[in-house]
């Protein structure tokens, strides 16, 4: 295979153009550089962290944030934080059943035409804290807590951004910053003023695995959980990706060999 210099230059510039072209301008505040288990082409979700993150989510975040596109069963499906090989069907996983029972959902109408409340089942969606957007805004000083379903994907450098946001609250706004009523100062938020009050503080939750519940630890855990929620098939995707790459690589070698064999006796 003879690739001339021009060829190589053009390929390189095209690739560069692709990268430069798509890297959109990010002018937000600087983010903290933290590492996560799920980054990179081999990365997987740290299951223990995702389980702890779920606890943080459930004890703190659910007060305001919905996660409408996920069902409780998702927690126990392959790749999920509570997946159990003995119960490949998440609906039969006792942990998932127990988690579901902690939520209450509205069902109905029954045969009388009335709506009624019942404990949630694994197949139910995660219930939302507010009935609608207006109710959510009314309880949050006009601000709308975003849904968690794909939030990590919806922010540039999602994991780093959300981690930074959760760990960058400051009790007092720096001099010269006039906090509006009901706002909190957060150095990682664009503009510095955020409607969300600090959701994490030392020992907010008690981790059953004995991990110390520092703000940084909880932030890191909940981001792992949220990243899973946004992209639950990531592990399966990367696993399949490697198989496909290896397959194509061998295929390419075979094709190259055949190409050379077919062309062996012709000048070109």
């Amino acid at each position, binding site marked *: 295979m003879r690739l001339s210099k021009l060829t190589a230059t*053009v390929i390189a510039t*095209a690739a560069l153009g692709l990268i430069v072209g798509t890297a*959109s301008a990010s002018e937000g505040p600087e983010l903290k550089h933290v590492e996560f288990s799920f980054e990179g082409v081999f990365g997987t979700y740290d299951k223990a962290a995702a389980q702890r993150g779920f606890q943080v989510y459930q004890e703190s975040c659910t007060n305001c944030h919905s996660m409408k596109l996920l069902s409780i069963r998702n927690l126990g499906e392959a790749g999920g934080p509570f997946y159990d090989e003995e119960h490949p069907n998440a609906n039969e996983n006792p942990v998932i059943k127990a988690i579901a029972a902690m939520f209450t959902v509205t069902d109905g109408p029954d045969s009388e035409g009335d709506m009624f409340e019942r404990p949630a089942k694994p197949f139910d969606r995660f219930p939302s804290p507010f009935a609608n957007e207006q109710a959510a805004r009314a309880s949050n000083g006009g601000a709308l807590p975003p849904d968690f379903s794909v939030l990590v994907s919806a922010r540039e450098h999602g994991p780093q951004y959300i981690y930074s946001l959760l760990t960058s609250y400051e009790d007092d706004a720096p001099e010269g910053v006039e906090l509006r009523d009901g706002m909190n100062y957060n150095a990682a938020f664009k503009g510095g003023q955020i409607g969300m009050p600090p959701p994490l503080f030392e020992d907010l939750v008690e981790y059953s695995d004995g991990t110390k519940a520092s703000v940084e630890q909880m932030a890191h855990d909940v981001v792992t959980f949220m990243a899973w929620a946004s992209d639950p098939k990531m592990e399966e995707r990367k696993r399949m990706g490697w198989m496909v*790459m290896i397959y194509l690589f061998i295929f390419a070698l075979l094709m190259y060999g055949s190409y050379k064999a077919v062309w062996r006796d012709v000048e*070109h």
Partner: protein
Amino acid sequence: MSSYPGYDPKSGFEKWLDARLPIIRLGYDTFIFPTPRNLNYWWTFGAILAVILMSQIITGIILAMHYVPHVDLAFDSIQHIKRDVNFGWMLQPMHAVGASMMFLAVYIHMFRGIYYGSHKSPREVLWIVGVVIYLLMMATGFMGYVLPWGQMSFWGATVITNLFGAFPLVGESLTNWLWGGFAVDDPTLNRFFSLHFVLPFAILGLVMLHVWALHVPGNNNPTGVSVKNVDKDTLPFHPYYTIKDAFAIVVFLMVFVAFVFFIPDALNHPDNYIRANPLVTPPHIVPEWYYLPFYAMLRAVPNKLGGVITMFGAIAVLFVLPWLDTSKVRSMRYRPLAKLFFIIFVLACIGLGWAGAKSPTDLVFATGTDAATGAPVGFSFLWFARILTLYYYAFFVVILPVLGLVEKPKDRPESIQKSVLKSAPEEA
């Protein structure tokens, strides 16, 4: 034509069918086609495009089985596909990344055509069919990006459809007609879905015309010298080029697959994971990367109508390229000046893409700071885009026409066979 005896039906059935519907003969003539023996890897992108087009159609049909074209449900239905549909997590990124791969390949394919003079006589119609395909691809890609109904979908659609409002007199009625209402809304989404479904089949039909138009004059080649002796200058497409194309396709698929499985969102904008909200305008509305050069041209002109004309004109000029490039020499290998201007042209297109991703007031480089405000001042992307737009047009309407008349080309090989015989190192 001793090397190409033509199809010879052997069995009784083949003879019977050949007299009624010579479809086997069609396939035979298509694949045992005399092809210049010196084609390089730039000639594999046509086959690569055909493969991605099929991949797009197949994944698209399956996605359409699960997608819901409704403003309240579209966003969720994409997530439903990625989470609950069997292999939906793979099909959705294959389709989304596939669009980018298709444009990557088509840009290489088109630059190849310009460099080697493949658009020139006798291949003008082949080229023009290609430009029509490209236009339809642009329309299809645009409408496809609207379907997930994220913020960029909605606002991209709003910005682009609003452009039609720039036309005097009919502008407003035209946009309302396109929208099916007074804003981008449910009727718009539905018609975009319908068109996005059908246009790829129109493209497929045009690709058949494209290949037909290719098989009348035959392939051009890196020397640009026409085939003189079919036996000496050419090889049958099969097996020589089927195997070379197959190798190139597999290599290209590796790039494709790397994106799909490892960085499926690398070419997507995070804002498109936010449900469309007509009340909240994103701070930067940017189209998909493959439209960025045109977006830069649009914004380079202060007047809206002027911008729209500049943008569409940039594609329109391609239709007449075969007549603008006046040189009788096809391949720029033998046109040192044209080659230089061509490389600048490619860089200008990439530069325009870069400008399209930035806001016009951003600076390419700063030269100092404003004395009053302390804000940096310097060379803005607005001016960068203006200069590059000017070059883009100049390349087609000034440089190529004039160069053809004044440039003294290098000596060309006498024939394709001679060019490969002297075992000189290949040069693009």
